[in-house]
């Protein structure tokens, strides 16, 4: 356990070394949120609410989903690069589980970005826009748990595609396409409330809704206790399903590497 914690801490320290990256991250997140808020401000015009959704709720949705999505970015080409130049061999020579090591590192980076990109950006946003407060402290804490589950879903989707680099020459294209899907379907461009009913029904069968929208709904208090349990159950089920798929590809990939050489 301690080793994995150290991986996370080392990654955290790593991120600290680049000053420009540090400041640009804050600027980047702040601007992204500001652009979306401006667009939606214009769309709302003088209306106080559309379909029962106030601008304040939309703004809150964007701060949480956009802010987190930029905090949850990391180098998704890591595995591919390792496989390509053969340094994956070094990873197998350490008595640690590579998947958990990857997760620890990515989470270390996520923690860094939440602390130093997301929180400052939220503070800047508060200077010009009003956001909804959480329904209650309990809702806020439950949201944190739900955010963690959402992160795991996002991470596993990425891992599944990353493992394909054992077979494909480059997974960059697929990762880019995946990111577009995630952006559109998880509600970071168009909030889930405004999606067409038909699309909403389709999305309900995908893991994308669970990534950011479930935490947003919990935070705003849109769900009853039963619904919260239900939605978080769905998150857990997706983690289970995606985890199994990722494990399957990982095992096959490692076997291919070990049998055929890197």
């Amino acid at each position, binding site marked *: 356990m*301690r*080793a994995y*914690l*150290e*991986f996370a801490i*080392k990654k955290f*320290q*790593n991120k600290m*070394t*680049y000053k420009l990256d540090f400041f640009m991250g804050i600027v980047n997140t702040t601007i992204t949120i500001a652009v979306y808020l401006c667009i939606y401000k214009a769309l709302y015009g003088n209306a106080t609410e559309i379909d029962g959704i106030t601008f304040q709720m939309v703004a809150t949705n964007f701060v949480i989903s956009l802010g987190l999505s930029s905090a949850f970015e990391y180098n998704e080409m890591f595995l591919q690069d390792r496989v390509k*130049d*053969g*340094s994956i*061999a*070094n990873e*197998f*020579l*350490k*008595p*640690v*589980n590579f998947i958990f090591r990857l997760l620890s590192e990515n989470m270390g980076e996520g923690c860094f970005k939440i602390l130093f990109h997301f929180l400052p950006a939220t503070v800047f946003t508060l200077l010009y826009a009003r956001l909804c407060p959480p329904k209650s402290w309990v809702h806020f804490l439950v949201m944190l748990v739900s955010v963690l589950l959402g992160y795991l879903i996002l991470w596993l989707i990425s891992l599944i595609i990353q493992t394909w680099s054992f077979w494909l020459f480059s997974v960059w294209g697929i990762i880019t396409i995946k990111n577009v899907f995630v952006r559109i379907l998880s509600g970071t461009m168009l909030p889930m409330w405004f999606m067409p009913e038909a699309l909403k029904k389709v999305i309900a069968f995908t893991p994308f809704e669970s990534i950011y929208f479930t935490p947003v709904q919990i935070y705003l208090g849109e769900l009853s206790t039963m619904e919260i349990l239900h939605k978080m159950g769905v998150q857990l089920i997706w983690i289970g399903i995606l985890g199994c798929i990722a494990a399957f590809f990982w095992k096959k990939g490692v076997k291919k590497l*070990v*049998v*055929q*050489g*890197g």
Partner: protein
Amino acid sequence: MKNIIEVDGVKKYYKIAKREKGFFQTVKHLFHREYEVRKAVDDISFSIKKGEIVGFIGPNGAGKSTTIKMLSGILYPDAGTVKVNGFIPWKQRKQYVKNIGVVFGQKSQLNWDLPLIESFELMRYIYRIPKKKYEENLEKFTKLLDMESFINQPVRQLSLGQRMRGDIVASLLHSPEIVFFDEPTIGLDVVAKEKIREFIKYMNKTEQTTIIFTTHDMQDVEKVCERLIIIDLGKKIFDGSIDEIKQKYANSKSIEIQLEDGEKQIKMEPEIESIIRDIYEGKVSLSTDEGKENHS
């Protein structure tokens, strides 16, 4: 002493897609591929005792790295058995790697952005090295390899020689019983090479570490190794001591001239480098050792 590494009849074949020139061949290649089999390692057997330093040499593409990869558990052989320290490397990987160290001269395992010492700290947790042992080892190694001056610098600012020393320390902090070096002196200057050679010898002497190392530098071989395994085209063509190879295969003899006044001595010994060159070029034919020959 007990054999710590036992390799018996190991084979590793790679399937390589055949490609022919020309447009139509390329199109055909899309739908139908023909494969040819390359024998990277073809029936190699040897055993190594605890505390030995063995040089593993052979021309480029002879199968050295493949063998090292099989010994360290990254690859598994198509045939034959490997037993190292009581483990089958590729089967009990996680247990097995706790007791070995591997240094790849061409692939660094250090954290690029952080000071060297941070990478060492990480090793402490990965291998669960007790604090006392870690501190002792670290102090000893930094002194031996002259690393005090740059241990707090980020790895990306280090020279190749400094980084290589860092890599070596990182793989030895947990006091492994067996260490594999894959071309540890590649691209280094004379002084850095000498430091590393001395260090390897020291580790072997004081800790009884079993060391296997591949190199193309014959100075490495001459100064460090006691025993030499030469492989070519996937087969073992020589296994014996340095002296043996000198006696058997040198096309020059050693001469000792003593001048009349008895003060000046001129010694001429056959150079290992020229012997090895002759072997690679096929000028000297080696009988397959111990009479074990394979007809195929």
